[in-house]
């Protein structure tokens, strides 16, 4: 009962966005902007050519790149384990609506693009991505966009995610204690109120320090 009296310690937070591959290969060292641009070009090529053969070659290239950059292939391919239901449903849909040739093209295109994106996720820090967004937005200054404020909002988002994930988990436990675990309202209202509270506190803290951009 002693635990009741003192404030409960925070649960060790699940590292919500912590799925980085360990390593120091060339992909980890490459600037995030270059990786984003590379992924953009790859996606564009795959989407525009729509050839199963091209997709296959690019798929092999992705695996070679991952090996060369010492990203564990298991982490890259764990994507398949997480998405196999989605992929199975997609395959079924394709076999119902389309001929095998188109089905192969659609499935390989989606798979290749997701694998390439996964490689980027595994080797890039989220805060670097916010930096990329800030650089992309620099020309938009002319139309009144403030890149510094957007980057600040992005960093606030990253900071809030673990907190809000905890809040959601807590709301789920509270709802379960009341026998309402299937009640969407009981599970989301505490989360939403917590969200607004957290935003107002953050806003006040920023105002007090006069921070509007980073």
């Amino acid at each position, binding site marked *: 009962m002693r635990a009741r009296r003192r404030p409960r310690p925070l649960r060790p937070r699940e590292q919500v966005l912590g799925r980085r591959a360990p390593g120091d290969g060339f992909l980890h060292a490459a600037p995030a902007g270059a*990786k984003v641009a590379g992924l953009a070009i790859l*996606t564009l090529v795959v989407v525009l050519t729509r050839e199963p053969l091209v997709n296959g070659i690019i798929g092999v290239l992705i695996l070679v790149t991952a090996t060369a950059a010492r990203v564990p292939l298991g982490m890259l391919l764990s994507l398949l384990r997480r998405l196999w239901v989605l992929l199975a449903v997609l395959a079924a849909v394709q076999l119902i609506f389309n001929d095998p040739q188109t089905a192969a093209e659609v499935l390989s295109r989606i798979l290749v693009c997701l694998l390439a*994106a996964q490689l980027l996720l595994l080797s890039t820090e989220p805060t670097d991505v916010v930096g990329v967004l800030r650089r992309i937005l620099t020309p938009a200054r002319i139309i009144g966009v403030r890149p510094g404020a957007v980057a*600040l*909002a992005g960093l606030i988002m990253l900071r809030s995610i673990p907190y*809000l994930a905890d809040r959601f988990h807590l709301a789920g436990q509270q709802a379960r204690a009341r026998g309402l675990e299937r009640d969407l309202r009981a599970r989301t209202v505490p989360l*939403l109120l917590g969200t607004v509270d957290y*935003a107002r506190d953050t*806003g006040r803290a920023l105002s007090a320090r006069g921070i509007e951009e980073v």
Partner: protein
Amino acid sequence: MSQPTVEPLPAAQAARPRRQSRAQDTALIGVFAGLIAVLALVPPIPVGNFGVPITLQTLGVALAGLVLGPWRGFAAAGLYVVLGLLGIPILANFSGGLGVLAGPSAGYLLAFPLTALVTGLVARAVVRRKQGRWRAPLLFLAAITGSIVVTHPFGILGMSVNLEISLREAFFLDIVFWPGDVVKSAAAAAAATLVHRAYPAVLARR
């Protein structure tokens, strides 16, 4: 750095500024983008699954519009989508990166900022004019309008292009999401009504 003000504000005005500060808006936009991300990452609710994962993601988008109004809602959903596409694993299934645009859910994803905008436009009008018991049903209408007018047409178009099926076939795949949408819109409207009662300054008194 902030520059010194020309003349100090009167005490009453300084204590309760008429307009919320820019920093407050930035914080609301950032944290609501985080809310959309968290709702997208939690395990999907057990409803049938047809190519596009059914998550609470659209609930977060509806809440952004209902609570923040059109422009800040648009900004929050836009920030979420753009950062997800640039390569932070915050999209459904912990995916992210531009490769997602080749997948079946690309249309839904790209629709989110506009959904929040449309929902927010209706919601702002409702919150400013109506109080009391009509508010929740009208906010439900706002959420469902955004969903019907923006999310589903974009989603159907996206599936049709990326899965190489006709619009008709994509439409039938999309029907699966309708019941969940009604449930989520109702939950969002109820929650948003509470927020506007608890914190009128967020949208009503702006």
